[in-house]
């Protein structure tokens, strides 16, 4: 963030400027969220302010409320009061106020400096406690702590794991700089993992959530690197002659399926996650690209124009004959498979509009997910309930999220009016 010109300020202002930079709110770097659609049914849930919330640097109950609201499946009722974790909840009272669930909690600071939060979740209809947790984390992880509680509430009431604690990676284009940014799923704590004067595309989270594979044009041609996020170490994984792109992790994190133009036209190959020789998987005379593993690791879905225009196909993970999966429209690309292996998300061009679609792989039922015209790069949430994608709004690249039934919708935009694109939604990390 510091640039050389800062150091050439006059002595009088230099110190002030340095302090200004030190207090520059890096931790607040975030994406703005705009909700434009909610679930067709919503669970009304009363969430109290937690006791002694000021003990934590972030308001825990506020983060929980924002998470559950954003999920689209909850109607948050503000209790307007503080309810500590040992509150005796009057079920019929809350039921009369329309709440199906009630959340209470208390915050305290431990002797070692950590924030300790105890919370309980009650079901007013069953008149019973559904969950209770005690979590302690360093104060700089207060938001993560709150997200963990929101995940617990989401799971107890919907049956699906929550993804509030997950992270997203995406590419930001800001002026002449490209950044691979990592942020919390709610858009907070955005930190650049890589900054470059040349484009970055196709970031992809490793299954363990520790690394991101990506394509960089830093050396005048596309090459594949894997960056270890905690250390910043970047390892070159593929630099064969021609293009190297479209990295996709195997479910066990040991291999990457990639696209190479080594043979003259773009084809799909396999390499070890730390590089080495590439094993060819496809053998068509057209373009085969955008490989994606099925969650069980048995198949690879990919884009191919072997039939004349780009369509989505599936082949064994060892290569061999491929079966066509998409048949509607003449342009279907960017296949992504849901974590349960049952749904395909992809981009289809119809009437010159590029839109996000989902396909039920068993029944071939297709659903258009958006009303925008320049959708790209879909990515499933780890619980399979949402798809994040890149789109364009107000002349800028933005990210959108839609639930797989199409009802919940929200957008993520940068404050600065930069372009953000190429999202990849990270795994649930234990």
């Amino acid at each position, binding site marked *: 963030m510091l640039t050389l010109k800062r150091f050439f300020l006059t002595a009088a202002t230099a110190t002030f400027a340095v302090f200004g930079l030190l207090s520059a709110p890096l931790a607040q770097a975030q994406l703005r969220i705009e909700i434009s659609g909610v679930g067709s049914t919503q669970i009304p849930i009363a969430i109290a302010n937690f006791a002694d919330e000021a003990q934590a640097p972030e308001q825990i109950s506020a983060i929980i409320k924002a998470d559950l609201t954003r999920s689209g499946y909850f109607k948050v009722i503000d209790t307007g009061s503080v309810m500590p974790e040992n509150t005796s909840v009057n079920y019929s009272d809350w039921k009369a106020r329309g709440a199906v669930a009630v959340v209470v909690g208390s915050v305290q600071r431990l002797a070692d400096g950590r924030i300790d939060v105890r919370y309980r979740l009650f079901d007013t209809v069953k008149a019973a406690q559904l969950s209770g947790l005690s979590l302690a984390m360093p104060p700089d992880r207060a938001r993560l702590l709150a997200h963990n509680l929101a995940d617990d509430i989401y799971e107890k009431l919907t049956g699906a794991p929550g993804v509030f604690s997950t992270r997203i990676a995406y590419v930001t284009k800001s002026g002449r700089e490209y950044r691979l940014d990592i942020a919390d799923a709610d858009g907070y704590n955005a930190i650049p993992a890589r900054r470059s004067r040349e*484009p970055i*595309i196709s970031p992809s989270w490793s299954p363990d959530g520790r690394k991101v594979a990506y394509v960089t044009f830093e050396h*005048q041609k*596309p090459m594949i690197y894997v960056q270890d996020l905690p250390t910043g170490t970047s390892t070159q994984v593929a630099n064969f002659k021609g*293009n190297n792109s479209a990295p996709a992790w195997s479910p066990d994190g040991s291999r990457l399926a990639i696209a190479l*133009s080594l043979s003259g*036209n773009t084809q799909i190959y396999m390499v070890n996650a730390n590089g080495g020789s590439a094993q060819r998987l496809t053998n068509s005379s057209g373009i085969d690209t955008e490989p994606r593993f099925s969650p069980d690791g048995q198949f690879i879905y990919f884009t191919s124009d072997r039939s004349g225009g780009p369509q989505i196909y599936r082949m064994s993970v060892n290569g061999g004959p491929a079966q066509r999966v998409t048949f509607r429209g003449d*342009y279907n*690309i960017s296949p992504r498979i849901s974590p349960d292996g049952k749904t395909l998300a992809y981009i289809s061009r119809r009437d010159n509009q*590029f839109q996000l679609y989902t396909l039920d792989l068993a029944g071939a039922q297709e659903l258009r997910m958006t009303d925008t015209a320049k959708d790209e790069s879909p990515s499933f949430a780890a619980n399979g309930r949402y798809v994040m994608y890149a789109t364009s709004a107000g002349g800028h690249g933005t990210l959108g999220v839609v639930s797989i039934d199409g009802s919940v919708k929200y957008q993520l935009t940068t404050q600065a009016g930069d372009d953000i694109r190429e999202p990849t939604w990270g795994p649930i990390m234990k």
Partner: protein
Amino acid sequence: MRKISALSLALASTVLFAGCHTTKLEEKPKVEEKPVVSEPAPVDTRKVETVVAQPDELNTNPALAKRSVYFDFDKYDIKDEYKPTVEAHGKYLGNKKDRKVLIQGNTDERGGSEYNLALGQKRAEAVRKSLSVMGVADSQMEAVSFGKEKPKATGHDEASWAENRRADLVYQ
């Protein structure tokens, strides 16, 4: 050198031991004919020889000034109007075997990044194939693509799109 000094010694000792008597001198040993190695003429170290750098034809030949080939929408073959450009570069590279070129293909902004990367590659590959047919070695060329990621023209109209459907020859 050793032979000569041995001979000299032998000659010298013969003469010494001969004393005053007339001694039949041995036949002069045959001296091997060695090529005459003339010492190089001493260099005038203060002299300055002027060298005129010859301009690389790449920078002077107008036929090589054009480094881009443009393509129609969804097309990956080289149009007739660009064949002379490709031929000129093919001839140059054929004559200069130590010269390498990176051929960078591009697409307009419409469509997905990865699929467009592959389409741009088709444009670079079309140029590469033409050069190859003209005798340029594989080791002299690499065909790559930027897809839609590095547009030269940033408008959202046909004029900009046409400018971006392009393969560039970038000499290394």
